[in-house]
């Protein structure tokens, strides 16, 4: 190594050190000096800034704590010989025999969510198009208000309604009529005896709870589409419905995408209503009328007495970890949709 090189290295090191100390001084010492040199009102200002810094990061801190505790609590099962990451594909849940497969719950959640999204997204987007494009002015405000109120109704109240009304309806009316009808009776999805507590009930009540989210967010997205685009389409001789379908929807696509993803997140995480109507039976449902067990329900039902058994408790927290990861992914995707909208459409 030549002398120059050594010098160069030396130099760069001392440089970086200087800049580090310099930055440290900039960051910590200078503000402190400023604070001491400031007059009284200046001191209030600077102290206030520091005082506010802590609450600003409260949500960050909580997220970190939630992640840390879920990881910490689910470590025993994820590292244990009877568990490991493989529990997510293992379908047998039997704490008495130390079997902690959570696949049933993952599948149950996904099926319930699929049914709910399958109903709520088309219906919700249709409703949003009506509300944003065709609704008479006088009706718009009341309908918006009702959808917002629907979003405010607690999930336990939806659960109560589903338990008292929807479940008996499925048991006494829907299932027999579908199974005894020669047109639909042979379809495998409609088979099986049912007491009403079923995958279908969970999916339907979830769909009802998602509708206000989908309608509100989609309506907002449609409303951000500039009126001039609608007018340009109408001026070319398009009908209102052609304009809505071909121009408005495509211009609002990122916002609609965000609405769907946020609805997905809510569907997977919904707890009480689903818990009350899905029957909570440890099996993978094969028909719409089979009972099922979702991720949120198993935590709600068992954490209360499982917490004294380390592995059992840990497995329940692992379910929570899966839920958490899913919800973070959904939030991220929704954000990406909105950023995509900013980039390609310039509004939203």
């Amino acid at each position, binding site marked *: 190594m030549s002398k120059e090189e050594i010098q160069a290295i030396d130099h760069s090191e001392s440089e970086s050190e200087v800049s580090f100390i310099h930055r440290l001084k900039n960051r910590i010492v200078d503000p402190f000096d400023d604070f001491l040199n400031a007059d009284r009102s200046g001191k209030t200002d600077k102290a206030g800034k520091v005082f506010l810094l802590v609450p600003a990061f409260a949500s960050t801190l909580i997220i970190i704590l939630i992640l840390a505790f879920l990881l910490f609590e689910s470590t025993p099962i994820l590292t244990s010989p009877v568990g490991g990451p493989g529990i997510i594909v293992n379908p047998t849940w039997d704490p008495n025999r130390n079997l902690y497969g959570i696949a049933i719950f993952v599948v149950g959640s996904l099926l319930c969510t699929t049914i709910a999204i399958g109903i709520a997204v088309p219906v919700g987007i249709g409703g949003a198009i009506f509300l944003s494009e065709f609704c008479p002015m006088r009706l718009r405000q009341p309908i918006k208000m009702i959808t917002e109120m629907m979003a405010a109704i607690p999930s336990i109240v939806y659960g109560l309604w589903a338990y008292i009304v929807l479940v008996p309806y499925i048991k006494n009316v829907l299932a027999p009529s579908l199974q005894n009808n020669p047109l639909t009776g042979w379809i495998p999805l409609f088979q099986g005896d049912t007491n009403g507590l079923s995958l279908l009930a969970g999916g339907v009540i979830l769909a009802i709870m998602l509708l206000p989210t989908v309608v509100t967010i989609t309506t907002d997205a449609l409303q951000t589409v500039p009126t001039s*685009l609608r007018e*340009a389409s109408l001026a070319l*001789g398009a009908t209102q419905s052609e304009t809505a379908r071909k121009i408005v929807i*495509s*211009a609002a696509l990122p916002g609609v995408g965000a609405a769907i993803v946020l609805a997905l997140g809510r569907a997977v995480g919904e707890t009480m209503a689903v818990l009350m109507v899905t029957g909570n039976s440890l099996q993978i449902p094969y028909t719409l009328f089979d009972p099922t067990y979702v991720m949120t329900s198993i935590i709600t039902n068992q954490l209360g007495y499982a917490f004294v058994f380390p592995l059992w408790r840990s497995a329940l927290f692992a379910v929570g970890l899966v839920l958490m990861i899913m919800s973070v992914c959904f939030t991220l995707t929704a954000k990406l949709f909105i950023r995509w909208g900013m980039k390609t459409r310039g509004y939203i």
Partner: protein
Amino acid sequence: MSNFKHHIEVHNLSTWFGKKAILKDISCYFEDNTVTAIMGPSGCGKSTLLRTLNRLNDLVPNFRREGEVVFRGENIYDMGYSVYDLRKHIGMVFQRPNPFPMSIRENITYGPKLHGVKDEDELEKIVETSLKKAALWDEVQDDLDKPAPNLSGGQQQRLCIARALSINPPVLLADEPVSALDPISAAKIEELIVELKKDYTIILVTHNVQQAFRVSDQAAFLYLGELVEFEKTKRIIEAPADERTEAFITGRIG
């Protein structure tokens, strides 16, 4: 009166938004293959008049109208008159460029497809002729599948003109088409309007007297919802008959 020579005739037209009167008893006509400028200070109702001609105001809540607008011998506000067919024959260009968030090609083919053109070759031909008429073809012929919102403001506005021309309407409405553009793009579009006069009847809303003078054959001056003067552009600008017109032309009101 109705000797079908004029493409559009307006008879005693009055409009209101809610209680507010916008246009007061306006009668005028727009002849074939001419450029008519509708001038006036902002808020005088020139855009409203223009948008009444293709019934775009119908969707504005609280809009009310009396009087007739006759297009090819039929009152367009008659019950049962097909507003979609009307708009097929009356194209429109807006104040700000408003390309659809699609590719350049899709922007042009949108209109023809609505009106039942399905043949790919024909659509291709329409894209080319429309863009050529709007003097945009040379600039974008290699980028037809690129998103239209990526074009510059002046190019976007010419694309909107091409889009309006894609269904070949005999009448073209232009609502201050250059006011949101830089001077060079504006000059290009003015040239284009003069060029298009050969094949189209053009109705141009503007608050710029010089622009009206440069491009139009006849002009209407609106003030506070009243039609003050309706004359050959040269006459109206060189020898205004009304003092309000004179005040506008000399820049005392505007």
